[in-house]
């Protein structure tokens, strides 16, 4: 057995990472095609406040992060509906406000025991058996709901007006998608970290988009790239002693560049022939 798999914490990291590798692009693809990447990033930053609140109250950081994200979704929507502030302003307020609140709450906590960097950039050491169970449960729920709403999410992503005119409950579907995005973020914190979660949802999809294929093919390629990034990111993190989130996201960025190069070569060959 390779050395890396002789440690329980690495096995747990792979288990958690592989679940994330499936759920992140599965929800992320809808955020990417709808140009909602900034919202994913905002929720990720808000989740730090949730993590800090969880640490403060001594409850699971996965659940507290999820609650913080859900409150942020409702808050952003409420402010948007009042139409007093632009969407960009609302997103920026929540992004920076969430991050600042998280840092303040962590600062207020009695000293000792918590390394904030673990939550900002991910650390396999924070993945406990209990965390795995939570990630597996929430990941299964996300996949189940994504499966049920897949066609509707696609139709709404394609054209919200046409979907609404055909009677699809667009507002409900948008909220459900946002909640699923928040859930993915909440379960990703330990492995990928608050600052890099958005990247795991977005970059594999952007890399897959380089091939200019259909939706299903793009999703399947993004899954493969995501799994590849998580596996090689965690291996790199172990052997080079790097933050796991940073290592995973760097792998996905390298894959994006490779895919972009391959697609350019492929399209120039097609044009030449």
């Amino acid at each position, binding site marked *: 057995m390779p050395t890396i798999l002789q440690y329980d914490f690495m096995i747990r990291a792979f288990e958690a990472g592989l679940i994330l590798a499936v759920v992140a692009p599965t929800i992320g693809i809808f955020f990417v095609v709808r140009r909602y990447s900034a919202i994913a990033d905002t929720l990720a930053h808000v989740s730090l406040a949730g993590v800090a609140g969880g640490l403060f109250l001594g409850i699971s950081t996965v659940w507290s992060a999820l609650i913080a994200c859900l409150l942020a979704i409702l808050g952003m929507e409420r402010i948007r509906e009042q139409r007093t502030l632009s969407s960009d302003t609302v997103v920026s307020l929540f992004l920076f406000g969430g991050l600042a609140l998280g840092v303040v709450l962590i600062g207020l906590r009695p000293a000792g025991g918590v390394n904030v960097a673990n939550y900002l950039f991910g650390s396999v050491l924070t993945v406990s058996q209990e965390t795995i169970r939570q990630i597996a449960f929430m990941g299964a729920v996300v996949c189940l709901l994504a499966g049920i709403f897949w*066609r509707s999410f696609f139709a709404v*992503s*394609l054209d919200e007006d046409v979907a609404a005119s055909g009677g*699809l409950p667009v507002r409900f579907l948008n909220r459900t998608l946002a909640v699923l995005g928040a859930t993915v973020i909440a379960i990703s914190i330990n492995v990928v970290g608050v600052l890099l979660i958005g990247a795991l949802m977005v970059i594999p999809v952007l890399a897959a988009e380089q091939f*200019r294929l259909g939706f299903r093919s793009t999703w399947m390629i993004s899954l493969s790239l995501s799994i590849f990034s998580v596996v090689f990111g965690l291996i790199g993190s172990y052997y080079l002693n790097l933050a796991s989130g940073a290592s995973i996201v760097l792998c996905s960025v390298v894959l994006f560049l490779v895919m972009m190069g391959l697609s350019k070569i492929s399209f120039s060959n097609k044009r030449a022939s």
Partner: protein
Amino acid sequence: MSVMSTPAIEAIGLSYVRNGEHLFENFSFSVKKGSYTAVIGPNGGGKTTLMRVLLGLLPSTSGSVQIFGRSNTTRDVRRRIGYVPQRGGLIEPTFPATSQEIVMAGRTQILKFWNRLGPSDQQAVNTAFEIMSISHLRNRTFASLSGGERQRVLLARALAAEPDILILDEPVDGLDPDSREEFYEALRHVNAQGKTILFVSHDVHRLAKEADSAICLRHELVCHGSKACMLTGTQLHDLYHPTKSELIQHHGI
């Protein structure tokens, strides 16, 4: 009113006010089942807004819309409508989807969330492709299609839902003459099957040949009813200004 005589669409006292400006006021008209109705009027005359109100995408300031005798806000009623928006609608040109996936998305409005696509759904999609003569585009991505091909795919998406009413907002704008002809031909075929068509366009000359009735608006309902109403010089004058009216008369309508 008997079921047989229930109009496909009925607008009753419809008004829409935006930022204090009346885009249209107190419109009442009906669209007969199986009719092919041209909706004409100048830019900014309220055509697209009217379509969006009929579709339930915008709430009217006053008045109501009935589709087959029921409010247009109910989901069952909306499922019976197919919509092709202006200039390809909100679809990002780079959206990663094949024509097959886009047309298949048209079935979503008539299925429950948890329903899987069955043989009847596949058959409806195949029929939509055949009507639009775009079966060869099935595996092409939306980004790789020309403007005309995209519009035909979007009409196929609307047809895949097997709607009773088709609302088309300037669907042939920017298309070359061949693509336009194919588009009109497909609509004639669909209309012959009994579907009600509401077609917004500036192409008065062509719609005079295609449609059997008309709604002419310019913030107010200039006329509605038989297509003859859009061909009279007085009404064209009211609608578009004398120059255009004269131009069209010059072409022998």
